[in-house]
């Protein structure tokens, strides 16, 4: 691994990595059973440098912002490196957002350049939202069909400069990326992540989960996500490892990729991990009685032998077939984006496949705590990573309070939102809005949220304010969306739901017509953003002088209701 303490920026570290590991394979890209691409670090450099040069020739300067909206693929990483090399600030956006949402964030980020792929550009260019983001002056589109009108965009493949680009140095304190943690419908929260944030996070994470040449990381989580950007790009690249991209994320192709590419690490969201567990359990249950008995005995032996620490050699021999299905070289599954249930973690550990369970948020530079497997604990999210100071603010008698963090990995602030930044970072401590306590062994246990938001099993952060627009002009006096856990706190991070609180017009009833209307509006939202029930409140909502709803006061009033009876199904 490169000594990252010597570097000032992501671009500088990557530039050296491409030379240092020139002959190692850095990227493999597959589409279904076909391998589309296999690049060494030298090949990667040869693809990226002409792009960086063309950017510079086109007037892209230090500090200019460039957005990438693409599915996971080699061109994502090549484009990102070219942007860093040219001294740019990367704005990675979620390709799963709607075109309107993407334009809104492009406008907010003030990106002058957009790199995207043709199917996404087809939707973006047809969207009315385009008119608002006049800041986007150039668009590069990958894999566009020939003889297609690109609506003012240029072909990525043809956008190449002839000479070598000039490397533009940046300082550690400069913004490297603007990463949106929320805000597609409300106030966008663009986390300004510095070069130092990434360099320090990389050192901390790789001290526990190291990469080296020959390691193969399967990149499934979207690369715009802080986790994949770190462990599916910057981390492996500064260590000479290989990143494997799949263009099709159907479960059968993901399953095939493990043995085919001998995967060492993979990051998953809890939903996918649970799905894997379900599939494996069904296969175990289908074994003939005799074989199942032997298998269960082997699992028990493995469990006993790995009580203190993982012993991959022993586990791979004992439970050979299971490990072979995963390629035989899988060291750890990294799980992130949302809370994972302990029984799922235990299930995999008992099979000899440790799951690196941790806790983090974009604002803190990905991970804050991670399970170091010494020993494995399914009931916690691990200990703070090196360099992380974590404290519990205002703990109750049982030790539970708000988790706060101070570290070189904490963001510089929210873009153009000094007020939000001041609320989030107090005296240098990032207030996470999550509740937790430390146990005697120094492990952090999470215990619900203080903030009004939910995180789905797919790792999506949903803020009620962001989805309220869809319910505008409902025939009610007033309405408000809440995370049910915010009103009725429970010491859990799973099964979180959104509810729509309605104050009906005088004399009106919650009837079938209104229910149908709410359902119709709800269906316009992406499935994971939808509300799960309605709560009726027959009193005026408390409001500020500027008529904004005082959500915390309203939540206190609602808390007096019995949640079981108050939430009406849709």
């Amino acid at each position, binding site marked *: 691994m490169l000594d990252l303490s010597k570097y000032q920026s992501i671009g500088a570290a990557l530039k050296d990595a491409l030379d240092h590991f020139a002959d190692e394979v850095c990227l493999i890209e597959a589409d279904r059973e076909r391998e589309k691409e296999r690049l060494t670090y030298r090949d990667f450099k040869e693809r990226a440098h002409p792009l960086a040069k063309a950017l510079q020739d086109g007037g892209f300067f230090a500090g200019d912002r460039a957005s990438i909206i693409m599915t996971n693929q080699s061109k994502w990483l090549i484009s990102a490196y070219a942007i860093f090399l040219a001294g740019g600030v990367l704005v990675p956006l979620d390709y799963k957002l709607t075109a309107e949402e993407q334009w809104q964030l492009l406008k907010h980020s003030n990106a002058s350049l957009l790199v995207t792929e043709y*199917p996404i550009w087809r939707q973006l260019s047809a969207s009315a939202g385009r008119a608002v983001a006049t800041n986007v002056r150039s668009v590069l589109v990958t894999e566009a069909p020939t003889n297609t009108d690109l609506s003012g965009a240029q072909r990525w493949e043809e956008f190449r400069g002839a000479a070598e680009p000039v490397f533009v140095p940046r300082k550690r304190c400069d913004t490297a990326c603007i990463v949106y943690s929320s805000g597609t419908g409300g106030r966008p929260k663009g986390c300004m992540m510095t070069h130092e944030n990434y360099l320090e996070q990389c050192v901390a994470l790789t001290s526990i989960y190291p990469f080296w040449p020959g390691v193969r990381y399967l990149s499934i989580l979207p690369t715009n996500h802080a986790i994949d950007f770190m462990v599916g790009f910057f981390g492996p690249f500064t260590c000479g490892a290989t990143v494997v991209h799949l*263009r099709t*994320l159907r479960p059968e192709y993901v399953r095939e990729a493990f043995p085919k590419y001998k995967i060492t690490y993979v990051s998953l969201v809890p*939903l996918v991990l649970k*799905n894997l567990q379900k599939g494996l359990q069904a296969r175990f249950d289908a074994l003939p009685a005799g074989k199942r008995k032997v298998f269960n005995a082997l699992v028990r032996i493995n469990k006993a032998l790995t009580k203190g620490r993982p012993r991959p050699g022993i586990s791979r021999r004992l439970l050979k077939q299971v490990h072979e299905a995963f390629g035989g070289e899988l060291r750890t599954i990294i799980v992130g984006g949302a809370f994972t249930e302990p029984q799922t973690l235990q299930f995999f550990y008992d099979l000899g496949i440790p799951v690196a369970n941790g806790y983090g948020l974009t604002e803190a530079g990905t991970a804050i705590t991670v399970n170091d497997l010494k020993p494995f604990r399914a009931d916690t999210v691990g200990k703070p990573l090196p360099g992380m100071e974590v404290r519990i603010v205002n703990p109750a008698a049982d030790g539970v309070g708000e988790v706060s963090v101070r570290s070189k990995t904490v963001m510089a602030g929210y873009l153009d939102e000094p007020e939000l930044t001041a609320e989030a970072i107090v005296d240098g401590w990032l207030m996470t809005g999550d509740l937790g306590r430390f146990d005697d062994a120094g492990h952090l246990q999470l215990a619900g949220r203080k903030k009004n938001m939910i995180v789905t099993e797919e790792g999506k952060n949903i803020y009620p304010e962001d989805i309220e627009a869809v319910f505008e002009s409902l025939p009610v006096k007033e309405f408000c969306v809440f995370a049910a856990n915010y009103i009725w706190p429970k010491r859990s991070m799973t099964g979180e739901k959104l509810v729509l609180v309605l104050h009906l017009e005088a004399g009106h009833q919650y009837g079938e017509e209104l229910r149908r209307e709410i359902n119709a509006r709800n*269906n316009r939202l*992406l499935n994971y953003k939808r509300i799960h029930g309605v709560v009726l409140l027959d009193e005026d909502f408390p409001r500020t002088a500027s008529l904004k709803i005082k959500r915390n006061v309203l939540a206190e009033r609602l808390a007096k209701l019995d949640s079981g009876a108050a939430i009406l199904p849709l």
Partner: protein
Amino acid sequence: MRTLEQTTQEVLDLAAKHFQLPVGTLAPGDDFFKKLGIDSLQTLEMLSRLENHFGIELPDYEVQGVSDFKTLAERIQSRL
């Protein structure tokens, strides 16, 4: 060449079969996440089955944001 109506019907029948529902219980306008109570992963599994049936490749991006059978059938039809 199938008509869009035929494609839609075949999509509905296959989805019903895949999720073990009586044929005829699904309608073109149904939201499959809601009607079938499935998550995004189960949707991907259903897509693989549809691909095999229609003999096409449906890139993941084509079904991004699609949640009803009618739109799904249109995306399939455009690739037949």
